[in-house]
């Protein structure tokens, strides 16, 4: 564990230095992320000038769903951004180099690009979440409040696990085909469906977003748990689905590595 922390820290330091060296570019990327966050926030608030609720949720609740989506999404990007580069790593031969290093290749690839810009965008998201939380929770008694907060935290962590599994599945696909890394961008767009509460979608699409592309489990379930509208069987389903997906993704990674043929060497 100590070795992994040390390697992660070293890679994070290198990424940070690289981003500082390219400060104009970094500022642009950061600006883009902030623009996207702020505009969607403006859009959500503007919508409520025309309607009293969205799928039965108030402005505060919809905002909370949006903030939770951002927390899970930013954490996933912060820790697994390196996987976005796997296609390039394979083509340029860096993958061979990662495979012979004395750390797990998935860890090495994921940590290859630790994006501090994501960390910077996480700060306002957490501050806003802190401001919205008291309005959401209202006057709950202490045990209920603690239970909901713990469940929220656990389901957010579960969401990050699902995001990790999907990233690993995409990495496996890229190792096998050497050209499917753009799938990660498709994942990003499908994940963006989680900006709104999953109840916005029809029943069929809600089922798809729960069982096929578990975006609803990843970003909507934590918010629902905190609002006290997620049944216990759905909580169990969330953890069951993430375990299955994690096992499946790690299995596919192992199998993909067996087919890896070091294209650039």
């Amino acid at each position, binding site marked *: 564990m100590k070795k992994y922390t040390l390697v992660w820290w070293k890679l994070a330091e290198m990424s940070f230095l690289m981003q500082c060296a390219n400060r104009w570019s970094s500022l*642009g990327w950061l600006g883009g992320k902030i*623009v996207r966050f702020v*505009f969607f926030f403006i859009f959500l608030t503007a919508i409520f*000038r025309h*309607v009293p609720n969205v799928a039965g949720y108030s402005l505060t609740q919809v905002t909370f769903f949006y903030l939770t989506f951002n927390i899970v999404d930013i954490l996933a990007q912060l820790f697994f951004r390196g996987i976005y580069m796997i296609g390039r790593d394979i083509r340029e031969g860096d993958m061979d180099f990662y495979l012979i290093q004395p750390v797990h290749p998935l860890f090495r690839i994921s940590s290859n690009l630790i994006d501090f810009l994501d960390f910077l965008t996480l700060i306002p998201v957490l501050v806003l979440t802190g401001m919205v939380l008291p309005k959401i929770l209202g006057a709950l008694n202490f045990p209920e409040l603690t239970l909901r907060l713990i469940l929220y935290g656990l389901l957010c962590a579960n969401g990050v696990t699902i995001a990790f599994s999907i990233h690993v599945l995409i990495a496996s696909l890229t190792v096998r085909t050497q*050209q499917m890394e753009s799938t990660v961008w498709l994942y990003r767009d499908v994940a963006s469906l989680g900006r709104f509460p999953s109840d*916005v979608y029809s029943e069929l699409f809600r089922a798809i977003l729960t069982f096929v592309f578990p975006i609803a489990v990843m970003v909507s379930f934590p918010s629902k748990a905190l609002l006290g509208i997620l049944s216990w069987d759905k909580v169990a389903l969330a953890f069951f689905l993430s375990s299955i997906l994690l096992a499946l993704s790690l299995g596919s990674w192992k199998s993909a590595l067996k087919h890896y043929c070091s294209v650039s060497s």
Partner: protein
Amino acid sequence: MISLIRKYGSVLRISLQQSIYYRASFLMDRARTITIVFAFYAFWSTLFQGRSQLAGYSISQMFTYVLGMNILRSLIFSDKTWEILREINTGRISYYLIRPISYIGYCSARDLADKIIHLFSAFLEVWIAVSLFNIPLYLPKSPVTLLAFLLSAVLAMILYFLMSYAVSALAFWTAESGGPRFCFELFLEFAAGAFFPLDVLPASLKSIFEFLPFASLLYFPLNIFLERASPAALLSGFLNQILWIAILSFVTRSLWKRGLKAYCSEGG
């Protein structure tokens, strides 16, 4: 003239073949666009439950806006200008500068290929969506509306071309233009009404976007198609497009002239 057509026609043909060759990438691109359109279709469907009007739009107008947005995005925003940044920063642009071909002409032909492919796919996707989900569409009642819409779409295409090339010219001075370009694109998409009609926004914010060139790209043409623009709004919209095209033509031309002087073919 014939030699020009043959020259740039070849670029167009090769670019079309390249786009079709990388099928997985292309299909993934389209899948991404469909996802975004689907998200907004589902969102607006929910909002329209039990309502006939929202932000001044009827249900058919709103769905036409969302689907029309998909088509116009393919026509206006599809381009290869990210390639320009790479070509300048790697020195590859030198290959084109020393050849008997205009780089801007070459890029325009390359962009046109991208637009043709994406526009064709966008029409196909919209047709499938409308047939599958039985989506009500708003169709203009007058042929003059269609003409005005086509004119505004062509002007929007020229406007985006100029904006995009002006931002790409930054690469002549810095290898760090990718970030600013990303920021510009995101801002532009929101401000152009590429995610939702600007009428949803507070009036003050909407007026700012209408004054700037952004709203002329998607929001204005789509409003013409939906016959929501009054004659006065039509006139001021067209004047705005022409004014910004004139300003940006000058800015882009100057930036490229200066940029080419500053260019030192790093890596080339």
